[in-house]
């Protein structure tokens, strides 16, 4: 097991490096000259060619690409992503709190998604083909087809305005979580519900289930065993869902005025604030890799068979 952990973790490292390299390179696709953008952000009134050259030198842009990349990576590891073009403050001072807020929303949502999709997934797999199964699936299809902006608008209108139960926006109180979490849950639970249901079903047809049945093992024992196995799927779904939801809260945050990553990113895009965009991509892609690795490690711990794959 230890060997597997080391191997698997080591494999994540080159991927992280490639990701960081791509993120760094991405910024160079921008049609704007970074030196010019920096000058403009500093409010320098007249940007001359000489000034651009000077700034390029000051920013070290005349050095070889790879060296600049190494420097950038080193500072990123210290959470120094440079300064925002718009506010002039360090990117991390913007990104850090926003990440925390989005993380809070994400965690609560993923737990809700997990509870709902595991519960319904198991239930429907056990009742495969019956009315319950079919109606839950039908409803889940319908709900996952809704644009989250639309769903959010209707929920606010109904629960906050019409019934006056919940706050419309913000994260001042725990009640403020309910609507955004519900919207995210409704939008994404359907997808994970399908995964869990399929994996449960595939176990129903697994040889060991057939064998157990043939041996006359009581049905409840078989179910219990399946439940245990499906926990494994649930864990991997959880690890998978965290970074996905983390990157998908943009619309919901925008509607509920949630001071998180999504709002920050949209503002940065509208303000052409490249360092923030770059840091956002890097942080999220890295978290994607970390969570994927984590999911594999947990799975391996639960299911020794998988460790041999490497």
């Amino acid at each position, binding site marked *: 097991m230890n060997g597997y952990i080391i191997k698997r973790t080591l494999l994540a490292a080159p991927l992280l490096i490639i*990701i960081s390299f791509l993120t760094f390179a*991405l910024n160079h*696709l921008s049609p704007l000259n970074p030196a010019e953008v920096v000058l403009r952000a500093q409010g320098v009134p007249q940007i001359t060619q000489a000034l651009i050259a000077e700034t390029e030198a000051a920013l070290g842009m005349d050095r070889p690409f790879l060296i600049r990349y190494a420097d950038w990576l080193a500072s990123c590891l210290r959470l120094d992503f440079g300064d925002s073009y718009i506010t002039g403050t360090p990117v991390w001072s913007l990104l850090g709190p926003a990440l925390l807020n989005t993380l809070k929303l994400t965690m609560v949502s993923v737990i809700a998604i997990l509870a709902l999709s595991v519960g319904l997934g198991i239930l429907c797999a056990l009742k495969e083909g019956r009315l319950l199964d079919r109606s839950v699936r039908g409803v889940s299809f319908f709900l996952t087809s*809704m*644009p989250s902006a*639309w769903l959010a608008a209707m929920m606010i209108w109904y629960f906050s305005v019409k019934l006056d139960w919940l706050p419309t926006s913000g994260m001042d109180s725990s009640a403020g979580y309910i609507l955004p979490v519900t919207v995210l849950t409704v939008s994404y639970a359907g997808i994970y519900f399908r995964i869990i249901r399929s*994996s449960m079903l595939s176990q129903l047809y697994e040889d060991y289930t057939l064998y157990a049945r043939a041996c006359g093992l009581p049905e409840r024992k078989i179910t219990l065993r399946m439940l245990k196995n499906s926990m494994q799927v649930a864990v991997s779904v959880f690890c998978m869902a965290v970074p*996905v939801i983390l990157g998908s809260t943009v619309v919901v945050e925008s509607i509920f005025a949630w001071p998180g990553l999504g709002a920050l990113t949209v503002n940065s*895009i509208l303000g052409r604030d490249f360092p923030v965009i770059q840091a956002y991509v890097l942080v999220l892609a890295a978290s994607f890799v970390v969570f994927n690795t984590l999911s594999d490690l947990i799975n391996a711990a639960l299911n020794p068979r998988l460790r041999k794959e490497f």
Partner: protein
Amino acid sequence: MTIHRKMWSDKLTAISLTVIAMVAFLGICAPWFAPHSPEQVHMELRYASPSWQYLLGNDHLGRCVLSRLIYGIRPSVLWVLAALLVSLSFGGILGILAGYFRGKTDQMIMRVCDIMLSFPGYVMSLAVVGILGPGIQNILIAFVIMKWAWFARVIRTSVMQFAEADYVRFAKAIGVGNAVIIWKHILPVALPDIAVISSSAFGTMILQISGLSFLGLGIQAPHAEWGMMLNEARGVMFSRPELMLAPGLAIVIVVSAVNFCSDALQAALDPKLQKNTRKPLRGQGLFPAKPKGEEVA
């Protein structure tokens, strides 16, 4: 499987397919079906209620909501479809190559796929829009860049099963060229899998593009697009909620039709195949493939 159930699911599939076909047709022939020009401004009709002349009313510039809805099919559905096809053919070709030839080719292609798949899709779309600036072309570009890896991976797995089949071995043995084998023997059997994954990706892509347009990062004025229409209705969301209804419903209807079709396709494939897709796919390379649904990222 009872006859009743089959009927039920068939009927739903039939309805869904009809809806999709009709929407596509309406979009292609928008100039003939739209009662007005989608960009014609009538300020005196600002926020007018539905009338016989303007069946769904008028928006904040007095433009015909129905016409905008019909023209909106083009970017919201058809362009997304085009991006899907581009991405699919790219991913498909690489996936087939990887699955058929195995060895080094496979290794290389799958490594690149792993890297692409480690960027969450929504984040990548935002990154591309952030670097290249808002605009629907840029989102579509992001889609193509992001989705092909996913397609390549799934198609590779599907192709791999058939590449080892006896009839393929036989064909190889008697000296049939690789291209012919792929074209005649591999592609047709891999097609159902391709159909399933592309249809499920289609739905999420439509939703994503409407989400980005809603945020003002998608299509730019004056073009009609459903997410954009939601965005325009947003400012008056609570004084004129009806303006959000039409584009929102359009998205829900099209996406659920696509989703139902995708599900029916999956169910219609023979049980053996179904069982294969159900099993969590485990890649052989660096990073294990994730269960289906990952492309929602």
